C-alpha cells in the first residue's frame, strides 16, 4: 500500500459487524426488496467520405461501442440498503486528459487502468441507518473549494449521526500511465493517490459547518517513460464551510480555503518556501495561497436577490478541481422577480471579474451582464426579451494596445397561440442580434463580428389526435472581415404513439444550406428517428437512428466533396422492483 493511502479495511469490517449484530438483535424476519435498472446498449457509427482518399472530415464517434449499466438497490429491512452503480463501456474512448490515447486500436489497458478509467464506473454504497460505506469509484463533492470534480477509486465512509457529519475517502484518482509516442500518442500520467476528510455539523435547511481536508500525491516512479509535459505533483487543501439559512428565505454562505501545492515533486526540498507539515513538504515549486467564496441573499416565491463573490489566489490549486483557473476575483449581483400576477418574470445578473489579482500578469477585467424579461401579455401573446453584455479588457504590456473584446447580444422572442375546437396552434418567432468587437493589440484597429439569427416555429397540437408535429425555419448570417456566412435551415419533427401507445415513434428531418462568401453553397440533410417500445411495463427497447449527408460546394478542395455519417443506438432497459 502506498504510504499516502490510508488503510480503511478496519472500518469496512466494523461496518459489516455492526450490521450483523443488528440482524441478530432483530426478532422479526427481515423484509427484502430489490429495485433499480439494468440495461445494455449498442452504438454503431459509420462514415463514408467521397471522393475516396479524402480525409477532410474525421470520425467523431467510436465505430462500435457497447455499454452496460446495472444499478440495483438491495433493501434489507428498513435500515440497510445496498445500492450498486455499475456503468461499463466495452471499449475505451479517451481523447483528453491523462488517459488520452486509450482508444480502439490503441495500446491495451492493464486491469488497474481499466477499473480506474473514467469511462467505467463500479461502485457500491452499503448504507445502514446514518452510516454509509463508499466503495469503488466515487465522485464526491465536499465543497466548492476543496474537492468535487474528480472520480476516485477506493473506499471510505459517510457518517451522519444526528447533526454530526464525518466523511472520509481514500483511493486512486488515476493509475500510472506510461507516455507513448504513438500513434495514437498517450499523454501519460503519474499514479495519483488521494484522500479526503470532512468533519462538521449540519441541520438541513438551518445550518452547515464543516472542515474539509483533501490531499493528492503523485507517485514519481509510477510511469516509465513518464509524461513529457506533466510533472508529478502534490496538493493539500483545507477549507471551512459555513452555510446558514434564516427565516423568510434569507441565507448566508461562506467558505475559506488554503492550498499548498507542489507543481513538480522532482525539484529539491526548499526550506525557503512555505510548507504545511506534516501534510506537504516544501519543494522549490511549492506555493501556498488562499481562496474564498461568499454569498448572501434572499430566496422567495416571487423575489430573489443575492450577491456572491469568489476569490482565488494565483497560487491556489487543488487536486479535486484540476481545471480551476486561479488568480481572479468575481462578484455578481443576481435577482429574479415574478410580478403582474405571475405573468411577468425578470431574471437579471450583473457582475465583474478581475483577473490577475496577484499582479503576476497584466490585469484584465471582465464585465458580465445578463437580462431575461418574459411577459405573458394575454392568454395568446407572450414576449421574451434577453440581453447579454460581456466585456474583456487588459492593459497593453509590451504591445502598443491592450486587449479589448466586447460582446453584445439582444434577443426578442414573441409567441402567439390560438385555438379552435380541434387544435391549438403556436407560432413563435425568435430574432437575435449579436455584435462582437475585438481590438488588435498591435494596430489598435477594432474588427466587428455581427451575427443575425431569425427563427420561425409553428407547433400545432391536436385535441383528438396523438400526432405531434412541429415545423421551423431559420436564417443565420455572420459577417466578419473577409468572411460572410449565411445559413438557412428548414426542419420538421413528428411524434406519434402506435400499437396501443406501446411504441412511441419520433422523427426529425432537417435541411441546411450554407453559403460562405461567393462560394457555391454547401448542402446538408440530417434525418433522425427513434422507436421507444415498451415491451412490458418494466422492459423497454429503445432505438435511435440518425444520418447526416453533407455536400460541399466549391469552398474546399476537392470541389463537391461529400460525406455520409450514420449513427445507430439500440438498447434494452429493464426496470425492476420486487415491491410492485
Amino acid at each position, binding site marked *: 500500500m502506498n504510504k499516502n493511502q490510508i488503510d480503511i479495511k478496519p472500518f469496512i469490517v466494523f461496518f459489516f459487524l455492526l450490521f450483523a449484530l443488528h440482524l441478530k438483535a432483530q426478532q422479526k424476519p427481515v423484509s427484502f426488496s430489490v429495485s433499480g*435498472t439494468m*440495461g445494455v446498449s449498442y452504438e454503431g457509427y459509420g462514415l463514408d467520405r467521397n471522393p475516396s482518399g479524402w480525409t477532410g472530415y474525421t470520425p*467523431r*464517434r467510436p465505430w462500435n461501442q457497447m455499454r452496460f449499466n446495472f444499478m440495483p438497490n438491495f433493501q434489507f429491512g428498513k435500515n440497510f440498503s445496498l445500492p450498486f*452503480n455499475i456503468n461499463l463501456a466495452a471499449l475505451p474512448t479517451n*481523447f*483528453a486528459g*491523462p488517459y488520452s490515447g486509450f482508444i480502439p486500436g490503441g495500446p491495451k489497458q492493464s486491469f488497474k487502468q481499466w477499473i480506474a478509467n473514467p469511462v467505467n*464506473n463500479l461502485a457500491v454504497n452499503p448504507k445502514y441507518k446514518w452510516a454509509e460505506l463508499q466503495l469503488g469509484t466515487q465522485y464526491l463533492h465536499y465543497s466548492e473549494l476543496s474537492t468535487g470534480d474528480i472520480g476516485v477509486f477506493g473506499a471510505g465512509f459517510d457518517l451522519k449521526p444526528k447533526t454530526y457529519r464525518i466523511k472520509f475517502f481514500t483511493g486512486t484518482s488515476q493509475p500510472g500511465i506510461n507516455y507513448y509516442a504513438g500513434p495514437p500518442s498517450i*499523454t501519460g500520467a503519474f499514479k495519483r493517490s488521494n484522500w479526503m476528510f470532512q468533519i462538521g455539523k449540519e441541520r438541513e435547511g438551518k445550518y452547515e459547518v464543516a472542515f474539509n481536508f483533501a490531499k493528492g500525491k503523485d507517485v514519481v516512479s509510477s510511469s516509465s517513460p513518464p509524461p513529457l*509535459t506533466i*510533472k508529478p505533483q502534490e496538493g493539500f487543501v483545507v477549507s471551512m464551510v459555513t452555510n446558514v439559512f434564516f427565516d423568510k428565505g434569507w441565507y448566508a454562505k461562506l467558505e475559506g480555503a488554503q492550498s499548498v501545492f507542489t*507543481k*513538480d515533486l522532482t*525539484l529539491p526540498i526548499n526550506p*525557503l518556501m512555505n510548507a504545511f507539515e506534516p501534510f506537504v513538504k516544501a519543494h*522549490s*515549486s511549492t506555493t*501556498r495561497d488562499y481562496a474564498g467564496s461568499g454569498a448572501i441573499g434572499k430566496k422567495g416565491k416571487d423575489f430573489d436577490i443575492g450577491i456572491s463573490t469568489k476569490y482565488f489566489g*494565483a*497560487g491556489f490549486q487543488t487536486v479535486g478541481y484540476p*481545471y480551476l*483557473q486561479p*488568480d481572479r476575483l468575481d462578484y455578481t449581483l443576481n435577482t429574479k422577480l415574478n410580478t403582474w400576477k405571475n405573468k411577468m418574470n425578470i431574471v437579471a445578473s450583473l457582475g465583474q471579474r478581475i*483577473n*490577475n489579482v*496577484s499582479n*503576476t*500578469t497584466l490585469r484584465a477585467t*471582465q464585465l458580465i451582464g*445578463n437580462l431575461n424579461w418574459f411577459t405573458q401579455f394575454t392568454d395568446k401573446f407572450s414576449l421574451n426579451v434577453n440581453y447579454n453584455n460581456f466585456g*474583456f479588457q*487588459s492593459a497593453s*504590456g*509590451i*504591445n502598443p494596445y*491592450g*486587449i479589448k473584446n466586447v*460582446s453584445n447580444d439582444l434577443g426578442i422572442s414573441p409567441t402567439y397561440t390560438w385555438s379552435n375546437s380541434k387544435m391549438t396552434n403556436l407560432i413563435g418567432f425568435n430574432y437575435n442580434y449579436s455584435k*462582437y468587437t*475585438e481590438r488588435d493589440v498591435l494596430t489598435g484597429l477594432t474588427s466587428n*463580428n455581427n*451575427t443575425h439569427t431569425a427563427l420561425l*416555429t409553428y407547433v400545432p397540437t391536436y385535441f383528438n389526435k396523438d400526432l405531434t408535429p412541429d415545423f421551423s425555419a*431559420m436564417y*443565420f448570417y455572420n459577417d466578419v472581415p473577409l468572411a460572410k456566412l449565411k*445559413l438557412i435551415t428548414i426542419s420538421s419533427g413528428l*411524434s406519434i404513439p402506435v400499437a396501443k401507445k406501446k411504441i*412511441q415513434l*419520433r422523427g426529425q428531418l*432537417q435541411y*441546411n444550406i450554407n453559403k460562405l462568401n461567393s462560394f457555391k453553397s454547401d448542402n446538408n440533410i*440530417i*434525418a433522425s428517428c*427513434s422507436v*421507444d417500445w*415498451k415491451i412490458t411495463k418494466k422492459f423497454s427497447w429503445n432505438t*435511435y437512428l440518425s444520418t447526416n449527408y453533407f455536400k460541399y460546394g466549391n469552398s474546399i478542395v476537392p470541389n463537391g466533396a461529400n460525406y455520409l455519417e450514420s449513427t445507430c*443506438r439500440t438498447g434494452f432497459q429493464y*426496470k425492476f422492483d420486487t415491491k410492485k
Partner: protein
Amino acid sequence: MKKIITSIVLLSTVQLLFAQFNTTLSLSGRPPANLTEWGIRKDVLTFIIAPPQSVSFDVKIKATIKTLDGTIVGNTNLNTARIFTPVQGSTLVLNSLDVLPLENIIFTGKYQATLQKTGKLPADNYMLCVQLVRATDYVPASTEVCKTFYLTAYQLPILTQPGNEQELNAKLAQTAITFRWTPVSPASPTVVTYRIRVFEILENQHDVQALRSNQPLLDKNIVGATQFIWLPQISMMPYVGEENKPDSASKRVIGKKFIWTIQTLDNLGQPLNQTDGNGESLSEPKVFFVANKN
C-alpha cells in the same frame, strides 16, 4: 625587500587576471513566468563557462536578479551554493537549474512573498546578472554578465459563450452554436492556437468524467481568433423520449448536455502553460444544454 613584495603582489594579480573565466549568458527575453519552469525548459537559460589555460581553484555561480532601477530582487546564497570544479580545456554548459537553483536563491521582501504564494515574480522588466566567484573567498573569477528579460504570466482563455449551464434552443443549436472565449492575456508574441473540444455528456456520466472519457464531437484548432461558429450536424432530438427514461438514473439529462473546453497551444503546438494548473493548458470547462424551447 620592498621590490620583492611588489613583485609578488604583481605576479599574483597577473595570475588572477590570467585566471579569469570567459563566460557567456544566453537568456530568453520573455521566459516563463513560473520560475520553476525555467528548469524544465532547457532553452530558457544557458550559461557557458570556458576555463582559462591554467586553473587551480573551484568556483561558485553568483546570480543576481534586479529590477531595471537596480533594486535587488534576489541573489545566490554563496554559503550553500554548489561548487564547480572547472577542468582545463573543457567548456561547461549549464542551464537554469545550475545557475538559478531556487532552493539557493534568497529573494527579498515582497518578491519572496509573491514567489511563495504564486511561484512567480510580479509582472515587470528584470535583469539577471551572473558572475563566477572563487569558492573559497568569493573573489570574482569572471566579469559579470547581465541580460534583461520581461516577466509576465499568461492567463488562459476564459470560456464565455455558451455560459455555464446555459440552455440553448435546440432549433437554433441544431444549425449553429457560437463559441466565444477571452484571448490569452497578455497577447503572446507568437501566434497561439486555441484547440476547441466539445464532448457530449451521456446518461449516468458526471461532467468532467465525460471530458476525460468520451470522444469529442468537435475537435478543431482555431488560430488566433476567439470565436468559432460550429455547425454541429447533429440531430438534437433526445436519444430516448423523456417518458421512457429509467426512473432511477442518477444523472438524468434533459435534452442533450455537452461540456466544452479550450486548450491553448504555442507556436510549436505545445501547451502554453505547462506548470500552471493541469499542465495541459486546458481552460476551466463549461457545460451547456440543448433542449426544445417552444
